[in-house]
């Protein structure tokens, strides 16, 4: 069987189209239309006529994963379509069904649960000091790894084909996510202390009294574990503090 290699131009087009994966996200098809949209130039290159129609119809079946983790799946689908699924003995549909849920869980944990809070907490240190570099720092900290992963995984998925599944497994992304979360918690503790210290200094109160905030924070954590929302908590505590201030003024 002769394998027709994908031109670089179409690969680059696929990469840029992957940024619009969720443009038509719907409860009915989830990301399926987006997935077809991203791969369409490549599919048009590999197939034609009735065959292309059948392949497109196949790609319209339900699909949903983490938007960044869709890149390795897309890359592997490109590799499979390049060989027209004949060598590996697995269809792109099977591959999508097999990988979408575990990859979604890994992506949610790594990017939404690990990298995003870490970048946010680091940039908030600058925001507390009133530095306008804070948004830029956040964007760089989040997007350099994220964009690198998206491009790298798409390329590796395409080059390695189904071996990419084992490569992703070897990276132990859930462990990396856990390390990021632990780092976030340590930094969050420092950020909270920094905020409290700043406030007490401004109010000319002994900063050592900042430890008073510890039981308050623990109560907050317990309330959230009981299912109270952060909005309810902030509205109730702000209302309570404001009421105290009103009564104080009135007296």
């Amino acid at each position, binding site marked *: 069987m002769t394998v027709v290699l994908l031109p670089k131009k179409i690969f680059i087009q696929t990469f840029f189209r992957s940024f619009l994966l969720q443009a038509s*996200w719907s409860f009915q098809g989830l990301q399926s239309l987006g997935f077809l949209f991203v791969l369409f130039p490549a599919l048009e290159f590999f197939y034609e006529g009735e065959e292309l129609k059948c392949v497109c119809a196949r790609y319209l079946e339900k699909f949903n994963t983490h938007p960044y983790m869709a890149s390795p799946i897309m890359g592997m689908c490109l590799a499979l379509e390049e060989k027209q699924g004949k060598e590996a003995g697995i269809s792109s549909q099977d591959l999508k069904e097999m990988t979408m849920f575990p990859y979604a869980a890994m992506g949610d944990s790594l990017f939404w649960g690990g990298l995003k809070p870490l970048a946010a907490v680091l940039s908030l240190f600058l*925001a507390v000091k009133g530095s306008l570099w804070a948004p830029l720092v956040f964007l760089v900290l989040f997007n350099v790894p994220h964009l690198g992963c998206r491009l790298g995984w798409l390329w590796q998925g395409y080059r390695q084909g189904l071996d990419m599944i084992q490569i992703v497994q070897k990276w132990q992304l859930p462990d990396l996510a856990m390390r990021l979360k632990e780092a976030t918690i340590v930094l969050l503790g420092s950020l909270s202390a920094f905020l409290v210290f*700043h406030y007490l200094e401004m109010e000319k109160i002994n900063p050592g009294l900042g430890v008073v905030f510890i039981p308050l924070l623990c109560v907050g*954590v317990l309330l*959230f574990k009981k299912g109270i929302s952060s909005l309810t908590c902030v509205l109730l505590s702000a209302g309570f503090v404001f009421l105290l201030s009103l009564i104080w003024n009135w007296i």
Partner: protein
Amino acid sequence: MIISHICTASIVSIVAGLDRTAAFQLMISRPIVVAPLTGWLLDTPLVGLEVGLLVELLWLCFLPVGASIPPDDTQVSIAATLLAGTGDYYIEAGSLSLVLVAVLSCCALGKIGQVFDGWARRFNGQFIIATQRAVAEGHLNHIGRNHLKGLLVFGFASWASFVVIGFCGALFLYLFFVVLKMGPPLEPVAGFLRILFPLVGAAAILANLKVRRSVTLYLASFVSTLMLFWFFK
């Protein structure tokens, strides 16, 4: 507040709203980015930074997992920056009290964003059906067209959330500062309320990040940092 301010914030609300789900996802939609950006465009960047600081951690633990939709902190941040930076409520624009009440009133309306986002996701369902029909009939050029129509729907949903949050927030600010004249009693506690938002957000993150010994790690870091600052001040 003038028309040009509202138009500028509207454009930001559409671009950032698209970044939230539909396109790019470069995190321009995060409060710490979008609020200072809005502030910078409205010539009040520090107000935006303050809004970003207050809102960023509040809903950070809500993950957009699967089909779940978190509260719209993007439109909340843009609307709060617009109201606090350019509003005229007989209180100095950009003052801490105004920023706090603007953020509180807009946050209370954050759920509205979920409603519009949910509507957009249901509305987009027709595009997948139309594409299935078009593919069956061999009109493959409809794939891209139908897919990109989703951008218009998400863009409109974002803008609509911004308008509703901004309008209701402005009404509340008017009631609070102009009708009830609650500005002066708020001033003594404004400093405390400023740190309340991030601390509540931190507690919410601690409760939701599934990490063993998270509270111990957090408290160790909190106490050691506080002691270091106290010692070296």
